[in-house]
């Protein structure tokens, strides 16, 4: 017998009571949902966790020797949340020593000012007070060792935000080629190699700690970020430095509009230096604001004659000794008259090129191609004109060449105009590539700025030199082409430039008229020089273009070629296997008065240079960077600084040397200006302690 049956009413009463409780609970659910609880929301928002993307470390852009041209350095910002999460009594008891420590470390405020700042933040309940910004890693470590901070790892109220700052340790060196890293409109190698430099974002569990600040919950990652690849460029820091300084010099002297220089290794097509400068009339200064060497597709003028004459020589099987009767230096087609600067009379083809005779070139080309101009255009096409050369940098301009004589803008004049470098537009880079191909025995190399991709310091991928065009001319014709260029520097328009050089160079000058808005300017020209050296065994080719020099007789040989010579001089001094000029005399070279102006530099280079010119010198130190002091007939190389722990005196040094020396001491360098160092913010002899140092160049 089940007695529960008798009292079942009471059990159901209990059941109803419990049902009422259930209803109350459900009612409470709806109540909670109906009325937003701000405290709860705030609290939830405060303790929100999220998987957040962790930016990978961006790869570096390195010079050929591994020096960083563009690198990411972490930078930190410290903020303080006054509203809690820390023990206020402990904070107050340590406040004085903390503030003294902060003042001592950052030196931007007195201890009292720091104290006032904290107290007012507490009063105003500032949850995100900025303590300091833009500090480096070493400063951060010192901050973490301060009183109070060191004992309270997690809940000190301090929030540390880090971000990567992209910096160029060499300042303006090859700045445009290296490029700019930013959210949009990236340029240069930063843009071209972005996909490799970028790396892969990681994922990490982070906790929101207030404002929009997130801190990692642990050092572990959900997905490990993959750092970007390092991109090793072909650029040589020293040559780039020299190229920029030399170009700047010639542009300042000749008051030019814009200019550019490219130095290329003949066999590989690797670009060793690439500099561009544009005049800014507002500040009356020159800046590298565009990669003109790639983008400026302009009428090349006389430098085009190599292509025209080689086409004629190949087609007509001409001999360089063939005489051309240029007569009085004019050549009339229809109502247009071509003129030479100076009448040349009857000269050989070699002289036509060497003296850059427009009339002679036009005659030779018209002689061969007059009956069939299309053939001439086909030659230019074979040489690659009208196509991209495919440099591994974004933004290459295309040369503009007529493809067919049936083109709407083709006229009777076109053949001879094109032969002397008008009615065609070619970028400096493209012109250099063609000259380089002739210097390289007919192998047209793809121009390269990047030779290698590295991961964690190891080679990941190597870009071998690429021949993009060959056999476009018979070997005899190529040899004739080199002869033509050699003639320019021996008997022609480039004769004066390499007069004192202990090596032989070959090339072509150009002094083109400038077409602005359809009208050719009367007084201004575009001076250029393109060529290679040494003439016997071409190792480097180079083009220099200087636009709209505002001086009298701004010829290519006078305005542009010296930049080429400056670079060749350096290469000659540092690369032993370049043959000496059998014809040149060493004595003339030694007589150059620039030796005493050497203030300081790399010991090895200086010694090599002095031995070469047989200048007596004494060495006092085995330091890497030395200063040279001239004393009558001897030079003494002495240590630039006796103690490696001290900040060296870099005044008088060039940019690359100064940065090298300072970074070697662990200093963080920022630079401004161009030229030689005139001042440094940390005085020589100060203890080197990873400080920031700013050097000013002029």
């Amino acid at each position: 017998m089940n007695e529960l049956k008798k009292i079942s009413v009471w059990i159901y009463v209990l059941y109803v009571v419990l049902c009422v409780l259930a209803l109350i609970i459900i009612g409470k659910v709806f109540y909670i949902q109906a009325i937003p609880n701000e405290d709860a929301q705030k609290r939830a928002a405060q303790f929100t966790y999220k998987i957040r993307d962790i930016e990978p470390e961006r790869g570096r852009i390195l010079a050929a020797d591994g020096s960083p041209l563009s690198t990411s350095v972490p930078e930190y910002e410290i903020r303080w949340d006054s509203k809690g999460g820390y023990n206020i009594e402990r904070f107050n008891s340590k406040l004085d020593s903390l503030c003294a420590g902060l003042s001592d470390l950052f030196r931007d405020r007195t201890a009292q000012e720091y104290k006032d700042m904290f107290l007012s933040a507490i009063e105003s309940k500032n949850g995100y007070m900025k303590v300091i910004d833009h500090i480096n890693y070493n400063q951060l470590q010192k901050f973490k060792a301060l009183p109070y901070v060191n004992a309270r790892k997690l809940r000190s109220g301090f929030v540390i935000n880090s971000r990567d700052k992209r910096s160029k340790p060499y300042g303006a060196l090859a700045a445009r080629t290296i490029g700019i890293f930013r959210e949009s409109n990236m340029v240069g190698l930063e843009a071209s190699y972005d996909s490799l430099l970028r790396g892969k974002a990681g994922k990490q569990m982070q906790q929101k700690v207030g404002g929009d600040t997130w801190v990692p919950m642990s050092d572990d990652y959900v997905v490990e970020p993959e750092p970007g690849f390092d991109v090793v460029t072909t650029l040589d820091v020293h040559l780039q430095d020299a190229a920029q300084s030399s170009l700047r010099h010639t542009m300042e002297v000749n008051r030019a509009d814009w200019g550019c220089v490219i130095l290329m290794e003949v066999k590989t097509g690797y670009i060793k230096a690439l500099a561009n400068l544009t005049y800014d009339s507002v500040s009356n200064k020159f800046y590298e604001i565009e990669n003109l060497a790639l983008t400026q597709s302009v009428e090349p003028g006389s430098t085009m004659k190599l292509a025209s004459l080689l086409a004629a020589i190949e087609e007509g099987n001409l001999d360089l000794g063939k005489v051309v009767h240029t007569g009085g230096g004019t050549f009339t087609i229809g109502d247009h008259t071509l003129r030479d600067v100076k009448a040349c009379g009857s000269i050989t083809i070699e002289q036509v090129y060497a003296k850059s005779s427009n009339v002679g070139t036009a005659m030779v080309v018209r002689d061969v191609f007059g009956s069939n101009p299309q053939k001439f255009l086909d030659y230019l096409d074979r040489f690659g004109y009208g196509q991209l050369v495919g440099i591994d940098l974004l933004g290459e301009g295309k040369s503009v060449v007529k493809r067919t004589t049936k083109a709407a803008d083709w006229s009777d004049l076109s053949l001879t105009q094109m032969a002397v470098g008008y009615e065609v537009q070619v970028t400096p880079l493209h012109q250099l590539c063609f000259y380089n191909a002739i210097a390289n025995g007919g192998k047209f190399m793809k121009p390269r700025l990047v030779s290698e991709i590295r991961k964690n310091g190891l080679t990941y991928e190597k870009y071998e030199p690429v021949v993009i065009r060959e056999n476009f001319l018979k070997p005899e014709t190529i040899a004739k082409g080199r002869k033509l260029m050699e003639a320019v520097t021996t008997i022609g328009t480039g004769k004066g430039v390499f007069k004192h050089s202990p090596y032989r160079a070959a090339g072509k000058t150009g002094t083109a008229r400038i077409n602005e808005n359809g009208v050719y300017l009367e007084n201004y020209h575009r001076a250029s020089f393109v060529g290679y050296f040494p003439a016997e065994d071409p190792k480097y080719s180079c083009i220099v273009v200087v636009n709209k020099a505002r001086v009298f007789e701004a010829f290519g040989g006078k305005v542009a070629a010296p930049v080429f010579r400056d670079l060749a001089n350096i290469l000659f001094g540092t690369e032993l296997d370049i043959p000496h000029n059998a014809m040149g005399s060493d004595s003339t070279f030694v007589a150059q008065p620039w030796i005493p102006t050497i203030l300081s530099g790399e010991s090895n280079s200086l010694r090599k240079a002095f031995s070469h010119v047989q200048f007596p010198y004494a060495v006092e130190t085995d330091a890497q960077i030395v200063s040279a002091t001239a004393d009558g007939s001897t030079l003494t190389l002495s240590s630039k600084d006796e103690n490696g722990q001290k900040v060296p005196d870099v005044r008088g040094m060039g940019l690359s040397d100064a940065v090298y020396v300072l970074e070697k001491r662990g200093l963080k360098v920022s630079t401004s200006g161009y030229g030689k160092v005139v001042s440094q913010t940390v005085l020589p002899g100060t203890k080197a302690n990873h400080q920031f140092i700013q050097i000013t160049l002029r």
Partner: protein
Amino acid sequence: MQKFLSHLKGDRVIWMVALFLCTLSVLAVYSAVSSLVWKAEGGSSAGVLIKHVFMLGLGLAFMYGTHLLPLTVFSRIGQLMIWVVIPLLVFTMFFGSNINNADRWIRIPGIGVTFQTSDLAKLVLIIYVARQLTVKRQMLDDFKKGVLPIVIPIAMVCGLVLPANFSTAALIGFVCFLMLVFGGVPWKHLFKLIAAVVGILLLIIVVGELGPEKLLPRYSTWKNRLVGKEVQAGAMDDSKYQIELAQYAIYEGGIIPKGPGSGTSRNFLPHPYSDMIYAFIIEEYGSILGGALVMLMYVIFLFRVIRISIRSPKYFGGLTALGLGLVITIQAFINMGVAVDLFPTTGQPLPLVSMGGTSIVFVAIMFGVILSISKMDEENDDIEQADELEEAPF
């Protein structure tokens, strides 16, 4: 399906409720342990989920096995096990694993499984009390001979559970008290018991306030939770913080289901897979599907249990079913009431839903016992079977 159902004896509705809750449990726990926090702390969500599903499976197996057993077996087990449970509780009190300053768990040697002794105690004590009430139903007027022998084991179990887990002790005590009420203990005796309980509570307060901390290590926690004392900012695991976040999760849930896996509160809500699972379910399934439906399951369950207990041919069966049904339902209400901030914070799992290792198995066994009792009603066993319960004295 028909064949499968034919194996299930006993109350079909209770079976449905059990299966519904188990399914919900898999979904909710899976979503909760997929949380980022869980992963960030190095937990493997797959491993944990597999273990939970295994526990549910084990629970269902026990439920099935138990429901096949005849009622007499439970009576015997209750009679014997009470003498195992009490020493076990003593053992737990002194040697149990210390989790959060609460000695609640013991480890079974060899297999590395821990279980909460109070789960076992709950089950055994209720069966035991039902048995005693049945045996002594003629002597209940006599306090010493009738009531006291029943009350002493209750007091012992509650007393041993209490220092580690106040809420479980209170739950067990309350349900046993209800069983005494429905078991026919006269009100004059019940009032004596109430007076004794009030006295003991006063004693606890005195000891907690003035005595050494070691005696009642969790006293301050109870006090804080009951009084709702303001807590220090930033403390991550304090109850006020838990409750606020649970309310936020419920608020976020709204009426329309967001769908499984979409809950965000799991990223900051402490124990979204156990103590706060109700709030988390509401966040993912909304207040109607998640909130009201889950509540309805327990309400239906209790209704069926009451029906079974009243209709049970055996007084012992009826009392056992009623006690177990009440303990499960009230525990569920406590869990839900905590989540909606009606009750002070306490760590009662939601029966058959919360992830909690062996406690699921014990709840499942309770279901099994109830189903076994319902089976007798269904089969309409001969009411006048020999009542062998009469013989055994306390």
